[in-house]
Every structure is written in structure tokens, then in C-alpha cells.
């Protein structure tokens, strides 16, 4: 446990001493801000036009739930940004240690492989939380300025979804990083995986064959979608939970195997 905390602290320190954390968080916030703004203006224009139309028709005006629409659109984009930015957080997490030879220090210290793997995972997960935290202000802003207030279920479900999605990518990214000494290689592997998971969703849309259906099951965003509708169901929880577990498990195996391969 003490080992785990030491690793965690060291990783957090590393993120914030090197420019990694600042660059990733900064880019994330710029993108999130731009998209939030864009989605909001789109939804408002749409609701305005819809209102005008129904007024011309002499109706009482359609009831459009603007906050929910904005929130849903925003959370959906948030998932996509996370899909593409989290690889940057994990690509060096083991590759760099292997290259610098510090892995030898960790592995000859009286700490378990689990301490190393979980400490590192929790650190990258914390950074993900830190990265998402400022976007909560958007939600607060919406609470202050919109009637009806945005639904809690949607906010809670959406953020839980982003965290699960991010956690899954961090766990898998750590594993891929543990496979190679080369940061570029591990970065490309993780990006490739993210892209594949993202594209799976598009490729399989509308497919009805059993094969398409099973591929659809692997498409991450399909499982992410219910969360941003405010639906937290066991399928999603199990899906992301098992990927996170698998990623961590494989990383531990991979570390263990370093002892057996030529280092």
C-alpha cells in the first residue's frame, strides 16, 4: 500500500513537472470550450427557428428542451475528445521507465507489481478527473441560466460514462505502453486502437448481420451513448468495467514477463 502511494505520488509529480499534463489539459479545455460554444449556438438557433416556424403556423410554439439537448451533444463530443487525448497520458507511462532503466529500480524494490500498475493507473485516472473538472463549470453555468434546469440524471450518467470510457483507454494504453521501450511506438499503438474503436461505431451502423452486431458490441461509443442519455445500465458498467480490469490485468502480466524476457 505504501509502495502504491509512493508510485502514485511520483507519477502525479511527473505529470505536473513535465509539460505533459499542462499541454493535454490545455488542449482538452480549448476543444471542449469550442465545442460547447458551437453546440449551444446550434441548439439555440434550431430552437429559435422551430419557434418561429410554429408561430407562423399559428401554433403555440414547440416545447424544446434546450438544456438537455446541449448537454447531450456536449457529453457526446467530450467522449470523442477523451478517446483521442487519453493516449497522450499513457504512452510514456512504462516505455519511458523501460528506456531510462528506472524499471529496474522499481522491480528490484520491495514493492509488488500490483503497487506499480495500480499506482500508475490511479495517477493517470486522477489526471483525467482533473482534466474533466473545469468542464463542470459549464454545467454550473447552465444551471444558472437555463429553465428548465438540466436534468441531474443526464449529468451524472454522462460524467460517469466519460470516466469509464477514459479509464478503459488508460488501462489499455498502459498495457500497450508496457510492451515497448519506444514511446512513439506505444503512442501509435494506442492511437490506432482508439481510432479503431471509434471507427467501429461508424462502420457497423445500420448493419444487421450477426457479424455486424457482434462488432457493434465492441464499438465503445455505442456503450457510451446510453450514459449520456442518463441511462446507467449494467451492460455499460460491465463492458467498461471488464475492459479496465483486463487492461490492468494484462499490464501486470506484461510487467511480470519482463523478468523472463531479456531486459
Amino acid at each position: 500500500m505504501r509502495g502504491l502511494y509512493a508510485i502514485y505520488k511520483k507519477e502525479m509529480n511527473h505529470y505536473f513537472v513535465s509539460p505533459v499534463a499542462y499541454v493535454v489539459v490545455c488542449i482538452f479545455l480549448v476543444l471542449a470550450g469550442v465545442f460547447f460554444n458551437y453546440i449551444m449556438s446550434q441548439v439555440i438557433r434550431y430552437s429559435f427557428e422551430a419557434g418561429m416556424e410554429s408561430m407562423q403556423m399559428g401554433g403555440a410554439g414547440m416545447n424544446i428542451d434546450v438544456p438537455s439537448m446541449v448537454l447531450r451533444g456536449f457529453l457526446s463530443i467530450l467522449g470523442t475528445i477523451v478517446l483521442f487525448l487519453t493516449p497522450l497520458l499513457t504512452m510514456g507511462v512504462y516505455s519511458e521507465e523501460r528506456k531510462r532503466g528506472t524499471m529496474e529500480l522499481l522491480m528490484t524494490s520491495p514493492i509488488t507489481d500490483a503497487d506499480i500498475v495500480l499506482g500508475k493507473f490511479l495517477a493517470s485516472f486522477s489526471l483525467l478527473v482533473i482534466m474533466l473538472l473545469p468542464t463542470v463549470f459549464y454545467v454550473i453555468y447552465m444551471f444558472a441560466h437555463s429553465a428548465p434546469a438540466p436534468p441531474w440524471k443526464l449529468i451524472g450518467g454522462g460524467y460517469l460514462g466519460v470516466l469509464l470510457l477514459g479509464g478503459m483507454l488508460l488501462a489499455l494504453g498502459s498495457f500497450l505502453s508496457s510492451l515497448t521501450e519506444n514511446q512513439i511506438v506505444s503512442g501509435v499503438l494506442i492511437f490506432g486502437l482508439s481510432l479503431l474503436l471509434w471507427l467501429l461505431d461508424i462502420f457497423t451502423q445500420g448493419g444487421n448481420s450477426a457479424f455486424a452486431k457482434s462488432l457493434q458490441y465492441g464499438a465503445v461509443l455505442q456503450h457510451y451513448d446510453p450514459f449520456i442519455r442518463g441511462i446507467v445500465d449494467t451492460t455499460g458498467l460491465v463492458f467498461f468495467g471488464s475492459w479496465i480490469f483486463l487492461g490492468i490485468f494484462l499490464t501486470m502480466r506484461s510487467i511480470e514477463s519482463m523478468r523472463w524476457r531479456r531486459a
Partner: protein
Amino acid sequence: MIEVQDLTKSYGDKTAVDHITFSVNKGEILGFLGPNGAGKTTTMRVLTGYLPATQGTAKVAGFDVFNDSMEVRRRIGYLPETPPLYFDMTVSGYLDFVARIKNVPVEKRAQRVESAMEMAGLAEQRDQLIKRLSRGFKQRVGLAQAIVHDPDVIILDEPTVGLDPKQIIEVRHLIKGLAGSHTIILSTHILPEVSMTCDRVVIINHGKIVAVDTPENLTLQLKGGERIRIVAQAPEQSLRDTLQKIPGAQRVQIESMGSSGRMVATVEASQGQDLRSQIAATIVGQGWPLYELRGQNLSLEDIFLQLTTEDPAQKKPEESK
């Protein structure tokens, strides 16, 4: 304190360490000497639990390095070939981290970090980022890292590599100072280092132990041999035959000296024999012009080279003497 029994480590079909057996007593400094690729690093990695052995056992403080890895890791301080440093940490921050993962209790941590910095001569660099330090200071941080938890056993892989002469002397002093209360294994390919710091030497080559002895004995045993350099004008083969027939001549090497027809012969004499007059008489007796005859002492480097570069067929008679 350390017992290695019949240890073998192979990578695929390449054997890096081949059935080696040795032990280190408590408080002793053992030098591991051998050319690059001899298996020094591999042996150390097995001892620290970083690599598992293919065959044989290794015990540190009575604990098997494989089965009781955690117990062994608690008792070992290890400086690998490249110091395992985090470049974006400060010296004291880094040592604090190492102290944490080495299970130094909270109340002792600050004091241990201080004394490690003190011992390695890093007091003034405590708040500097490791990446800004020179090569020599980085090496010292690596050394401080190995002693920060005050381990029973310290394993140092080439601790003085990359240091300037002054720093080398300081590091040697530091290592000597640690002996007694700590058991130390250090590897090197620099001979004087061994004779200056170690109580006992293991010479290893191609994964096998070639010799185990105190540095004094090794030097004594091998330095007794004298080498004689001869320049003479003679046919190569007959010169070789003649020289080899002289009683006491151990090894004869002959090189041609350009197109002049002169030969440079080197004869190694066994311990305590002076063959110079005999060689001179023999060569002159054959009617060959003799241009030069000179005795050379075998340096430690020569001994080392002898022990580690000979082929096994030639080595057998040497060892039996």
C-alpha cells in the same frame, strides 16, 4: 551473506552465466572482474531478483532470491549499469521516493535521505534537478539511491564508470567506508580498482569463473612471471623451436618486424626465473644476430588479459602450475 550455487542463466541458446559458484562473507567487498559481456551484469541481476536464474540457486542473507524475492529486495541496494534516475526530480525528491519504495519507515526517512546525500557528496546539489547534473554527479545520485535504505547488501554494477579520476577516488573511499557494516559486490573491468577496494576478486569470463582469490595473491601469483622481449634476425620457425626448448620458457610469441627479416619474440618465464642470459647465449650460439634483449614485468592488465583471452586449451597448464 551471499551464496551462489551452480548458477546458470541462459537467454535462448546463449548462456550468459555458466554454472558459477561463489560466496561472499558478511562485511566483505567482493570484486567482480571481467571483460564486457562476461556475465557480470547478468549475475548481479539474478542476485537482485530482477532476472530469474535458469538453473542453480542464489541466496542473500539466507533468503532465496527467487522464492523470497521480497525479503531479498528489502535487504539489497542496487546500482545498475545506468543509474536508474528520474530526470525531472530533484536529488532530494528522488531519494525520498526511493526511500519510500524501499520501505524506509516514515520517521527515519528524512534522516536517511540526508545521510545518503552526505555520504555521496551531494549536499550542495540537493535541490537541483537530476537532468541538470553532470555525468559524475548523476552517478553519485545512483550510488546514494543504493544506500538510502541502509541495506545489508550493496550491489554496484560498474560504480566508477564515467567518473573523472578525482571522483573515482572519492567513490572508492565511499565504498571502502561502507564495508564492514555492509556486504558489497561491485563489478568492474578496471583492474586497479579491484586491487584498491576489494577483499576478494572473482574473475569471470564467458560466463565462467576463471579465478577467485584476494587481489594480493592474484598479483603475486601472476606477477612473478617475467616477460622477455627479444629482437633477433632469424628464421621464424627455428627461432620459435629454439626458444621453446629453453627450460622455464612458458609461452613464446613471435612477430615479424617488417621486411628487415628481424623477429620480435616475447618469452614468458615462469615464476622467479631469469632466462635472459640463457636466451642470449642460445641465440648467439645459433649464430643469429641479436639486436635487443629486455625484461618486462607483467602488469595487472596483462594478467587479466591472460586469464580472460586465452583459449581453454592453452589455459590448462597455466592453471595447474
